[in-house]
C-alpha cells in the first residue's frame, strides 16, 4: 500500500479536526477536535519518517504526544473552572468579552 494514502488520510483527519473546532460549540468537543488535529500530524510525521528512512519523524511524534498530554492538563483545568461557575461548557455562553 502506498504511503501517500496515509498522508491523505492524515490530511482528511486534520481537516475534520479543523472544521470541528470552527463549528462545534461545546468546549470539550472543540478540544477533542484539536487533539484530532495533533494526532493527524503524528500520522503524517510517522509516514514521512518511513518514507525518508530516518527516525526523526518518529521522535518528533513522541514529543508531540508529551506536549499534547500537558495541553490536556491545562485545558481541562481551565474548562473545569469555567464550567463550575457557569454550569455550561458551551463556547457560545462565554460572551462577556466582545467588540
Amino acid at each position, binding site marked *: 500500500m502506498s504511503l501517500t494514502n496515509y*498522508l491523505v488520510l492524515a490530511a482528511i483527519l*486534520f481537516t475534520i*479536526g*479543523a472544521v470541528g*473546532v470552527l463549528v462545534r460549540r461545546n*468546549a470539550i468537543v*472543540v*478540544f477533542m477536535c*484539536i487533539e484530532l*488535529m*495533533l494526532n*493527524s*500530524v503524528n500520522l*503524517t*510525521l510517522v*509516514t*514521512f519518517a518511513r*518514507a*525518508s528512512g*530516518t527516525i*526523526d*519523524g518518529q*521522535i*518528533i511524534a513522541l*514529543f*508531540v504526544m508529551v*506536549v499534547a498530554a*500537558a*495541553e490536556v492538563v*491545562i*485545558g481541562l*483545568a*481551565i*474548562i473545569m*473552572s*469555567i464550567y*463550575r*461557575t*457557569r454550569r455550561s461548557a458551551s*463556547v457560545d455562553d*462565554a460572551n*462577556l*468579552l*466582545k*467588540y
Partner: protein
Amino acid sequence: MIEAPDLSLAALAPLLFVFGAACVGVLVEAFAPRESRHPVQVAVALVGTLGGLVTSLLLAGEGLVTAGGALAVDGPAVFLQATIAGLGALSLLLFAERSLDPARSAFVAAAAVPAGSPRDRELMTAPRVQTEVYPLTTFAIGGMMLFVAANDLLIMFVALEVLSLPLYLISGLARRRRLLSQEAAVKYFLLGSFASAFFLYGLALVYGATGSIRLSAIRESAAGAGGGVLLVLGLALLVVGLMFKASVAPFHAWTPDVYQGAPTPVTAFMAACTKVAAFGAILRLLYVAFGTSEWTWRPLVYGIAIVSMVVGAVLGLTQTDLKRMLAYSSIAHAGFLLTGVIGYGSGADGTGSGLGPTMFYLLAYGLTTIGAFAVLTLVRDGDGEATHLSKWAGLGRRSPLTAAVMALFLLALAGIPLTSGFTGKFAVFRAAIDDGAWPLVVVALLASAVAAFFYLRVIVLMYFSEPAVDGPTVGVPGLPTTIVLAVTVTATVVLGVVPGAVLDLAEQAARFVG
C-alpha cells in the same frame, strides 16, 4: 551507544538561570510556609530573570550553534533573550505590587473556588494571595528565551508550548471580574492550541519536503530543489502559527478579548514579552530557514502586514475600553514590525537588513507598552481598574503626574518624535524603503496617522474634559510599580532622544549563525 551532544553551558547560562529559578519556585510553592511564600517567590523569580538578563548580556558577540545543533546562540538570540529577560523582570515587579488593590494582589486567592460562590466573596477581600503565578511566569519567560534561540523546528514547537501553557493559566487568574478572566483563558487556550496545531502540521510538511527540521538543512534543501508544493504549504502553516502568537491580523481574534480579560500585569507581560519572542522566531524562521526562497514568503508577509496595520488602526478607533484599545494598538504595531521584517538585506546572514531595526523596535515597544499597562493599574474605582475611557476624563486635573506619564507613553505608541516609538518606526520604515517596499511604507504612514488619532483622543480626554463627579481614584503605587514606571519612562525618553548606542548595538547583533 548514543553519543551525548556537545553542550556549551556558558552559552546556555541565561536559559539555565531562568528555568532553574522556575523549578526552585515550584519547590518553594510546595515547601515554604504560606506567610513567607510571597516575598520568597518574588525574590526567586527576580533573581532568575535578572540572572538571565546579566548572563545574556555577558554573551554579547557570541555566535555558535550548540546542543547538537538544536540551539543557535547568536547576536539576535542574545539580544532578544536579554530583552525578554529584562521585560519579564519588569512584568514580575508589576505582579508583585501589593499596595494598589485593597485585597493586596491582582491575582485570585484560590483559583479552584467557583467565581461568585460565598467562599469566593469571602476570599475576595482576604489578604491571602496566590503565588503560583511567579513560577508559571518564570517558565513562560524561559520558554520565550528558548523560542528565540531555537535552531530547529521541534525545539521551536516545544518552546512555543512552554511559553503558551503558563500564559493560558495566568490569564485566568484575575482577582476581580473573574468571569471575564476565565473566559479570556478559555478563548486564549482554545485558539492558541488551534494555532499550534497548524504550526505542527507545517512542521510535518516541511519535514516531509526537506527530510530535516534543522533550519540550516531546510535552507539548503529549499535552495537546491526549490521545495515544491509541500514546502510552500508547510511554510505557510508555520507562519500562521507564529503570526497567531505575535497577534498579527488576520490571526488576532483572541487579542482584544484576552488583553481585556486577563489581569492587567499579565496583559503587560503578554503584550511585551510574547510579542518579542514571537517576532524573534518569525525572523529566525524566515531569514535562516527560508532566506533563499524569499519570493515565497515576501508577498505573504507583505499582505499580512498591510491587513494588520489597517485592522489595528481602524478598529482601534471604535474602542471605548483602554485595555482593548491597547490590544488593537498592539495589532497595528505588529504590522509595523512586519514592515521591518520585509526589509530583507543583501547579506546571507541577515546583515544590512531590517533585522537590527526590528529588534530595536521590539525593545522600544515592549518598554513603552509595559509602562502604559502599569499606568492602567493605578487608576481604579470600586470594582478594580477603571479601564473605560469615560472614567479617564479630566484625569490631568485630578492627578497631573499620572496623566503626564500616560500621555508620554501614548505619544510614544503613536510615534511622535523625541520618543522611542518614533525612532523605532523610522528605523523599520527606512529598512523597508531601502528594500524597495515603499508602497508598504505609505500604507504604514497612513495607518500611523489613523492610530495617532485614538492615542491623542485619550490625551485630549485627560486634559481637556471636566472630571466626572464619581470618577476613579488614582492609587499611590508601591515600590515595584514605581520602579517599573521610572525605568519605562526613562527608556522611552532616552531611546527617543539619544537612540544611537542601542541602535548600533541592535545593528551589531543582527547576525544569524543558523
